[in-house]
């Protein structure tokens, strides 16, 4: 089989893995060429708007498992292929030298057994690292059921590892991925997490100690293939971040790849739900929110019409209005529309002068939603009076269709919004 054919088959088979991040790797690996950039670098964007930063392929799409949601399940009639270590290493280096990619994302179907498969991945990565001298970014997938010794070996070759948790509950796993279980997924995650900690500790004492998964581990789960609510998903993710020190959880809107009766029939992948989950995920990691603040028994799903922070703010009018000149960093982050960058800018700018609405606008804080939650000096409108009328406030916060006819109106009009005058 020619390289082109293999690349097509094994790229096609890997593309539903969402992660393509290349950030957080540590420099200082030995080798002849390549480097990792701390912030990560995107190299291109596919027609679906997703960043392509790594050459994402399976080592082999042969698979003994028969997971209902997966294109490579053993019962699927797809063409099967496997790389040789040389083919893969040639491809990675040729693409890398042309600056097409930041590195390699290597996963695989389970050929014969998890250990057999992982050994083959290790062989390919050893060739790439030691013979070809490649020190670019490598993301390696840990296959559930692999022995710890092989995971340690793989971890010494990779910048990041991930084990896919696939589905948000044990019941769904049993139903859709009969060969997997919660236990078989969490065991390697725990192995990797402890090893990262142990090697990291060693490296703090001696900078020459080997690097083990310096960019940490991540996981992925499929949204919309099983009946779990957002509440369950976000609680699970909060647990994963806390317990296993994961760097990222990726959410993948379920794209129907088979007509299995166990799977829901969707006209379109639930992209908006995926988007809201990512927003909620950011709130967990960067904004100091807890899962239970965003979803609860009373609100088991995120509001699809509003971002999670706006809907939290609507439920908590007592927290607002906030005075941007006095609020702490953590408080600023709770204002809808104010992100990490804006909060930092506010803190820096207010050292020089007392800030009003116009100042905020000038330093680039997006005020469309934020203004309703701010305590502003008199004469700056009374946006926050809407706080007492949740339904009107909700209307004001809903995303607006952009009109192309009045480009000038995209800027914030500083007079009061029409909602109040009508």
């Amino acid at each position, binding site marked *: 089989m020619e390289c082109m054919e293999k690349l097509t088959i094994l790229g096609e088979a890997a593309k539903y893995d969402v992660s393509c991040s290349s950030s957080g790797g540590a420099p200082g690996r030995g080798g002849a060429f390549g480097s990792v950039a701390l912030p990560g670098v995107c190299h291109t964007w596919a027609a679906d708007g*997703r960043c392509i930063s790594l050459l994402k392929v399976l080592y082999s799409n042969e698979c003994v498992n028969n997971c209902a949601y997966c294109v490579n399940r053993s019962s699927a009639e797809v063409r099967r292929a496997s790389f040789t270590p040389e083919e893969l290493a040639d491809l990675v280096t040729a693409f890398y030298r042309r600056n097409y990619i930041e590195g390699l994302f290597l996963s695989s179907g389970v050929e014969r057994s998890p250990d057999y498969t992982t050994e083959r991945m290790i062989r390919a990565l050893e060739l790439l690292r030691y013979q070809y001298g490649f020190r670019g970014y490598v993301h390696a997938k840990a296959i559930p059921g692999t022995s710890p010794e092989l995971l340690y070996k793989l971890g010494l070759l990779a910048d990041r590892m991930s084990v896919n948790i696939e589905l948000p509950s044990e019941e769904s796993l049993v139903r859709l991925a009969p060969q997997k279980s919660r236990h078989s997924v969490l065991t390697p995650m725990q192995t990797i997490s402890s090893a990262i900690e142990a090697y990291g500790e060693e490296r703090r004492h001696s900078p020459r100690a080997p690097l083990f998964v310096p960019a940490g581990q991540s996981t992925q789960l499929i949204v919309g293939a099983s009946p779990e609510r957002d509440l369950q998903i976000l609680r699970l993710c909060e647990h994963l971040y806390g317990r296993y020190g994961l760097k990222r959880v990726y959410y993948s809107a379920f794209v129907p790849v088979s007509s299995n009766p166990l799977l829901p029939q969707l006209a379109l992948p639930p992209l908006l739900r995926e988007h809201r989950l990512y927003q909620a995920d950011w709130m967990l990691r960067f904004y100091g929110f807890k899962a239970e603040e965003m979803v609860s028994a009373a609100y088991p799903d995120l509001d699809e019409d509003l971002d999670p922070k706006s809907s939290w703010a609507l439920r908590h009018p007592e927290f607002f209005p906030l005075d941007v000149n006095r609020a702490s960093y953590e408080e600023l982050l709770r204002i809808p529309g104010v992100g990490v960058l804006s909060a930092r800018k506010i803190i820096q700018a207010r050292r*020089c002068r007392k800030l009003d609405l116009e100042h905020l606008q000038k330093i680039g804080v997006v005020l469309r939603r934020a203004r309703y939650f701010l305590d502003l000096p008199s004469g700056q409108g009374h946006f926050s009076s809407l706080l007492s009328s949740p339904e009107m406030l909700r209307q004001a916060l809903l995303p607006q269709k952009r009109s192309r006819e009045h480009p000038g109106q995209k800027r914030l009009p500083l007079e009061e919004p029409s909602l109040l005058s009508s």
Partner: protein
Amino acid sequence: MISWGYDGTFEGFLSLLCHSWSRKISPSAVAPPWRRRRGILGDWEEIVTIPSQASRVWRYLEARLSPQGRRRLYAAWLQDEDSTELLLLRYLALVANRGREMERDLLHPVVRQVVDAERSVLRESHRLQGLLRFRKIREGYYAPLEPDFRVLPLLGDPLAARYSDTPWMVHDLRREEVLAFRPGQSWRMGILSKEEIPQNAPEEENWQVLWREYYKVMAVEGRENPKLRRQFMPQRYWKHLVELEGEVEA
């Protein structure tokens, strides 16, 4: 109307600062050679680069600006637009008057413009660090670019860290400048006309075909999102992207 030309190097710009300050003259236009060709008519007085003056000005700036402030000055200077040098002259006059606290006054209109200039230059250089495409040529690799700003000097360090075992060059076709690297040496800037595009090596085509194919395969059907793609990757950059060459989106 006083129009000053200079050689387009940062040293040249520092010399020009010295020239302006010591004579107390404020020019109404300043431009390196490539912007004079394109731009405003009139007589250009050439300000010669004097290294000793440049280093004197740099020592002065070291005393007046924080390290971060000096990086900002340099990045903003790379914006390379008709008003860039004049903006920086005004900015440095403010710094001379009010000192370091100026750097933090993000609401001052001049400071804001400098910060904006820095931000757009850094954004483009980070973007192009991913979007530039090398082609194998007879000796080493070659990448053509047409950046909005003069980002080549900012690409020198990251690319040299990455491709340290082979010669390569990045060509700014708009400014007819080149960033060139040879193993064992540090990167250098030079001049290269836009007509002098080296030929691809024979094996190049094969890899380009593979990459185009892979690129197509990676898009998930049912999730097409042309607007999002354009947002990340504006069409003006497509011309030199192997995977999108010649394609224009409807």
